[in-house]
């Protein structure tokens, strides 16, 4: 049962929409190994495997799909690495990045969800696409204190309200 007094912990959980940032879909349709090598050379780090992230100060790559990476930040070095094996397409206008911060973000994401966000199943550095309250969202476990949710812009306000409403339940 919920006991009075839990409001103290919930105060520590916040949901903040981050400012718009350049986001691209990087898709590779042929010669994936060769492209991966070229990309690694250009970026200085390897393309992350499924449901993982990798990056440096300028660019973060998040893998949510078998053939597509979400690129956050600078893509200038990538264009030349793809040739006829892949393409970059801008998508940032359609995504709102929401930062769920505080010790209870994993619990918050279980509300209306179906995906196991426990540290064992979804460790720091992992990414996952799932559905929360009927909305398709993509998650990136940044740290034990924060997760970034990539939410379709049109649903961002609805989902924000949904999460705000659920805050009183956290830590129960």
């Amino acid at each position, binding site marked *: *049962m*919920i006991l009075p007094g839990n409001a103290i912990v919930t105060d520590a959980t916040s949901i903040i929409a981050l400012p718009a940032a350049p986001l691209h879909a990087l898709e590779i349709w*042929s010669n994936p190994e060769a492209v991966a090598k070229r990309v690694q050379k250009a970026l200085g780090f390897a393309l992350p495997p499924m449901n993982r992230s990798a990056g440096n100060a300028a660019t973060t790559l998040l893998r949510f799909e078998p053939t597509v990476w979400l690129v956050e930040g600078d893509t200038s070095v990538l264009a030349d690495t793809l040739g006829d094996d892949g*393409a970059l397409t*801008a998508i*940032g*206008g359609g995504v709102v990045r929401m930062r769920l911060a505080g010790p209870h973000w994993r619990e918050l994401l279980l509300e209306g969800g179906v995906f196991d966000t426990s540290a064992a199943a979804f460790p720091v550095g992992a990414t996952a696409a799932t559905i929360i309250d009927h909305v398709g969202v993509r998650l990136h476990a940044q740290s034990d204190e924060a997760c970034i949710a990539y939410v*379709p812009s049109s649903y961002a306000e609805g989902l924000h309200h949904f999460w705000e409403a659920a805050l009183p339940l956290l830590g129960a």
Partner: protein
Amino acid sequence: MSGPMRPATGEETISFTFDGTTYQARPGDTLAAALLANGIGLVGRSFKYHRPRGIMTAGIEEPNALVTVGTGGRAEPNTRATDVFVYPGMVATSQNRWPSLSLDVASIFGLAAPALGAGFYYKTFFGPAKHWLRYEGFIRRAAGLGNAPTEADPDNFSQTAGFCDVLVVGSGPAGLKAALEAAEAGSSVMLVEQDAAPGGSLLRDPDPAMDPAVMIAQIKALGGKVLLRTTASGYWDHNFLTLTQRLAEPGAVPTHGFAQRLWHVRAGRVILATGLIERPVPFANNDHPGVMLSQAVRSYVRRWRVLPGKRVVIATNNDDAYLTAEALVEAGAEVVALLDARASGPAAPAGVTVHHDARPASVTGRKHGLRKVTAVIGGSEQSFDADLIAVSGGFVPVSHLHMQAGGKLTWNEEAQAFIPGETPQACETVGSALNPPPAPAVAPAGKAKKSFVDFQNDVSLADIDLAWQEGYRSVEHLKRYTTLGMATDQGKTSNMVALSRLAEKQRVTVPEAGLTTFRPPFTPVTMGLLAGAGARNAGAHVRRIPLHGLHEKHDPIWQPLGYWFRPRAYPVNGESLAEASMREARTVRTVAGLSDVSTLGKFEVSGPDAAALLELVCATTVGKLAIGRGRYTFMCREDGIVFDDGTVWRLAENRYLMTSSTGGADRMAGHLSYVRNSLRPDLKCSVVNVQEHYAGIALAGPRARAILASLIGSEPPRHMGYAPATLAGVPVHVLAASYSGERAFEIHVEASHAAAVWQAIDAATRAEGGAPYGLEAMELLRIEKGHVVVGGEVDGRSTPHDLGLGGMLNKAGGFIGAAGLTRPALSAPGRNNLVGLVSLDGPIPEGGMLIQRAGQSPQGHVTAAARRILEGGAIALALLEDGHKRHGEELIVSSPTRGEKARVRVTSPHFYDPAGERYRD
């Protein structure tokens, strides 16, 4: 009946009301315990005959003591008094009685009972259906139980995902042990208990070797999650379970606004420690207040320190009831007789007379309890003065979840019970449900007519006999004919009693007689909980367009379109929708207007095989487009029917933009993905959904080109041309496409920068005398131009030819739908074709039927109606049988539901600038 024993600890610190009278209760009391402590035995009325009913059990299986708890939007009708814990200020009200619980007029139905046996309603009330409706109104008012609230629910309900290695259901001795063992082995454990206190049978029969509180603390210390007041209500495929957790008692104001929580749990393994439910005993008037299950009596005495009766008869066919005798004697009650149906039994407590080969035959009662119990002992009748009878007809393992999981049951002859057997899921049953105490079959001793089996639905042994006599012999027929097991207790106390009667009738064993299946939920579940957050929005969030806030400033009329909301019109000076939209359309025809088209489906297709993919999806040729050019296209389903339309633009050598309709955008995204990844994984291309990435702004009208030229500082592309540009300092795509029939452009801009672009175009357009326009004006413009719209003329039943698009089909074929289109009926005469209609008198009712004369079956219907924007006069688009060949014919549009009618002439659907001269430079 009962005086409270209640000495020792605890004080009556909680006030609550029942039927308006204030009573006191102790913390931890169920409403049933509190009522008994206050000497109240009459709690409710039965469903059919309105017989007086009391408290029969101490748990979720209670069939009789149903009350409404709470008020207003929080009122919960049909709440089991045995399954609600009293809280300060609780308001409980009895149900299904008028004018009062003790004087219920409808109890006269009991007098008519001989005529109202099982299924009586199938045999009478004949005549026209309308007459039945009248009888039915009376029956409906008499039936039902509590009243539904009439107000909206003020509380929220949470739905939460849960995951664990081991889920243990039930915190009795077996459940506690299993949960602790699993936790000690390093598994993540969830332990759920429907009661507010852990312990299960330990609360009634304490075991010094097991302290529930200590074990719970150990489980928690090992990281286990313990959920009290939580019922595992559904066991679904692949070890998925739904748990319902009460965060506040029925009717109570929840601490944080959430009344209950629904857990969606995926468990590695499930351990069911669900225990037993005691079986009642059929005898005459066995439904009267003062007839109680033996273990329930023991619970009230031991757990709640309430004495439900002072002079008690115990009737049993097993050893367990002897423990009840012990408890009663300890508590100072007089056990006037222990009737044991068996020839022998264990030793009884001192002072208790045991009668063997003894069965209860009938009871008589008074308001809150019994007066007399009559038994058949050895073959002769004997009566006892008693205010309570504690009965035990054996035990039924709680195998509901096991069966929901697909598990089998095996028959245990000794216990006359079905025991959980094999299951196809990772699930096992432990504890007493596997080992019910021996309890032999006993033939009922009382009159069948008043020996109730299903208490709540007033089904007696006689009803079962009648169903059998009339041929309703399969257990499912029996259940449906008599309504047995269909009440809110779902047959928890009645199923086995009924099944043994059926077996007796069939002269077969119980397992041969059959078994009904258990389906979720285990106990009834609040609808608001199942709705969750969706109770407020039907599970459908509103989708906001990027410029929602900007439009809001103009206070537009909003129009829902799927889950989106778009401005329908921007009225000024108190204009109506019709006035505003006509003004906006006129502005577009004469000056220029701008409109938000952000919700259009948009897909970027890139790669060497991009054109090949588009040629597959689009039914028109698109592969030969020059860079910087676009064209109108449409897409067919595999059966050849048009399902969407849009445009395709070649942005660069290997990069295309495809647009599609708003309503079909999600479907198109799935279709494209299927075609690209499933049908043609060999293609070298990428399809990216950019619907939300780009906001879209349409600029249309004779001044549109000049306005745009001034904004981008260069000549915009000619009709069906594409060019990148910079507008208000923001990079944009300019697509010269016209939907309105005027020279027009779509400006696509990254959504996060759309406001600046809209404001710049808006200012420049207004400066020219133009204005923004909404969906309604767009509709007027496109109807006049004869453009089809998905969901209107593109109705999911029309071919390209039907819609006048046949000429644009890719002659080479190879597109999806080409094969389907060859089917003969798709080119047979009599198909509905797109036509225009011009009214010869008044407005044309949209959706109206096209007929030649009154009384005739329709030959078509109006898909969209409008007024001509500059010339005036009513026009419409319609789908008409063989319409292509009927231009010039006069018909009637008839709308009987609206009492409207118009005479019309069939024309071409292109009313405005059919040659397309206005948008060409």
